[in-house]
């Protein structure tokens, strides 16, 4: 059994919480005490039916305001797969929340209300899915029961979305007509929409092919921690612990250590269960080398003929997550792979209107939830790939040096 991480996004009242409640309920993930609790809360609120949406509201202020504030993580499993849902709320801090949820997702579900069709938020959600390079997108057209399960409505939204999506980079799109409230096409096929011949949502989640999504070509091993036991039993042991960020590493491979440029040979790879012959993403292993070379946390192993850029001038797409706008000249702390450094915003290239995808070249700042392209100069070289090639070695976070708050998410677009 493997693991699929997916993010859900929708605007207010698209029925996202109901959908998640439905998935949990129909896969028998809801426990009796949780259901009892929700039934009680529904009754108190005067709902006519058990409001499955209440399952997912975690905090008191959320229940009080009837909205979801922060990303919440949910878990369910079927005999085929285990699923982790990053449930990203529609209103407050929507961009920040969705970027957060999408950053680790293999798949994103964007919900639209069949009565309303695509709205501004739908474009935004699709754009973020493509910006964060979530490999699979599901457009779930919800509330089909309220449009008489009309095939025309489905076709129209499908076609509107396909037109918009041509401007984006979405490798795999699936469109499913559903009713989360009634359970149509969630776990079982809808008898109300016999014109739809595709998979149900759960069937798609269970079977979507994700094995080829990670970069298995370019060997990237950011060193996280150097293991050197201070004991007589294992004298002279030196192992480089880390998580494989790309490619397949094998015992006997020649590797280059960056930034030093020295080369050596892998003599052993130790996984959590003992020695292994090869390691691939996202395995956490300890690598041993034939030679003692200069390599520590923040450094990286790669293949001599396939190196990342080693660069200090880096262009990134940034999603800004703080009230105080980002402007040219701003200094920030950054974290990229296992490397920490400082950076200065050298240039603000443009701000992107995520609805029209128009680039505003005159923009002088990025406000909260804005997305734009900036140029950074870092205090030390980063071993970096373009985000489109590798999400692990192409992403970085921006941190305010005074408050230590994470204020931005950045995706590397250029390293010249």
């Amino acid at each position, binding site marked *: 059994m*493997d*693991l699929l991480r997916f993010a859900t996004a929708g605007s207010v009242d698209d029925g996202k919480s109901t959908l998640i409640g439905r998935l949990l309920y129909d896969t028998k993930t809801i*426990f*009796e*005490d*949780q259901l009892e609790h929700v039934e009680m*809360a529904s009754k108190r609120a005067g709902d006519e039916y058990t409001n499955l949406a209440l399952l997912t*509201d*975690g*905090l*008191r*202020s959320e229940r009080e305001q009837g909205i979801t*504030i*922060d*990303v*919440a*993580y*949910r*878990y369910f*499993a079927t005999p085929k797969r*285990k699923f*982790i849902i990053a449930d990203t709320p529609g209103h407050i801090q929507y961009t*920040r929340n969705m970027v*957060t949820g999408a*950053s*680790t997702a293999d798949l994103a579900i964007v919900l639209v209300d069949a009565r309303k069709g695509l709205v501004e938020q739908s474009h935004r959600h699709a754009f973020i899915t493509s910006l964060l390079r979530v490999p699979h997108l599901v457009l779930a057209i919800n509330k089909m029961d309220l449009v008489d399960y009309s095939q025309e409505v489905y076709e129209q939204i499908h076609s509107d979305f396909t037109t918009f999506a041509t401007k984006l980079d979405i490798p795999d799109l699936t469109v499913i007509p559903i009713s989360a409230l009634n359970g149509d096409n969630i776990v079982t096929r809808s008898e109300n929409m016999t014109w739809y011949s595709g998979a149900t949502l759960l069937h798609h989640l269970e079977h979507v092919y994700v*094995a080829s999504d990670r970069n*298995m070509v370019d060997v990237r091993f950011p060193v*996280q*921690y150097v*293991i*050197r*036991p201070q004991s007589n*039993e294992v004298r002279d042991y030196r192992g480089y*612990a*880390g*998580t494989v960020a790309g490619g397949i590493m094998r015992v006997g491979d020649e590797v280059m250590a960056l930034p030093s440029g020295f080369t050596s040979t892998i003599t052993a790879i130790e*996984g*959590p*269960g003992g020695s*292994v012959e090869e390691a*691939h993403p*996202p*395995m*956490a292993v*300890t690598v041993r080398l034939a030679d003692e070379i200069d390599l520590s*946390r923040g450094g990286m192993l790669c293949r001599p003929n396939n190196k990342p850029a080693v660069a200090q001038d880096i262009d990134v797409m940034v999603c800004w997550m703080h009230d105080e706008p980002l402007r040219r000249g701003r200094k920030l*702390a950054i*974290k*990229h792979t*296992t490397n920490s450094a400082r950076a200065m915003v050298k240039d603000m290239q443009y701000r992107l209107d995520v609805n029209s995808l128009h680039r505003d070249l005159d923009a002088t700042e990025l406000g909260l939830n804005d997305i734009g392209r900036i140029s950074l100069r870092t205090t030390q070289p980063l071993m970096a790939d373009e985000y489109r090639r590798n999400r*692990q070695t192409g*992403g*970085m*976070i921006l*941190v305010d040096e005074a408050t*230590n*708050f*994470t204020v931005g*998410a950045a995706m590397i677009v250029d390293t010249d």
Partner: protein
Amino acid sequence: MTTTHAEYRLSQLDELEAESIYIIREVAAESERPVLLFSGGKDSLVMLHLAVKAFAPARMPFPVMHVDTGHNFPEVLEFRDRRVGELGVELIVASVPDAIERGLVKEEPNGSRNRIQTPVLLEAVEKGQFTAAFGGARRDEERARAKERVFSFRDDFGQWDPKNQRPELWSLYNARIHPGEHMRVFPLSNWTELDIWDYIAREDIELPSIYFAHEREVVDRKGMLFNVNEFFAAKEGETIFVERVRYRTVGDATLTAAVRSDADTMQKVLDEIAATRITERGATRGDDKVTEAAMEDRKREGYF
């Protein structure tokens, strides 16, 4: 390591294991003085097992801390001391009875020491100048926990502010703090109760005996079976009876209820967990029944 070689995919348990090891190593690298909170319960034992793996063949580079309510199951205490001794790591005990004696906290009228653990924990973190404390909490446990970050920031009062959490992107964890502040780090965030048991079975991790079916003197209080012991007396009108039970969680002996069970082997426990229809906190924790937001309130104050 079970991988499908044609596809290079990890099984879900291997992926969770890899993620947790990454998180533990990240803390060791970025945080000046980490400590691992250890209750002797199954989650903290899995966390300890992962911490040992993360640094092998070296010793794990941080001590473990037990916040001891004084209301312990003797089997668990004995187990704790033996396990810590085997690993050769330092054990710090933050004692609630001792804190009551010193006047740091007051015994609550109902005798529960759940809430008063928090100041004791925070004092121990401050005294040890710990900058990060590993906890074994999982997001599937409880609604407020579902909103918790892996690296969860605590201010200089030890408080959690759920509305002002740092966004957590990719696997880039922001461990930066100012003096006096600390991080709570939850390496098991993405594990479910069933994952924990599957992993314990796969890795053959030894558990305290109370996790398996045994006979015990209990009373039935509001549908929960509580063991009658030196900390927990039967009330008037309650009948003490012997029942075959096991514990699904291990905590304060006055608060943790047992469940009826015949599962005396790992496989039987696994079968039972897979079939159960009640969450482990719902089945065993008297403390979460108080209010709708009991856990959220305790977490804001600095609880585990």
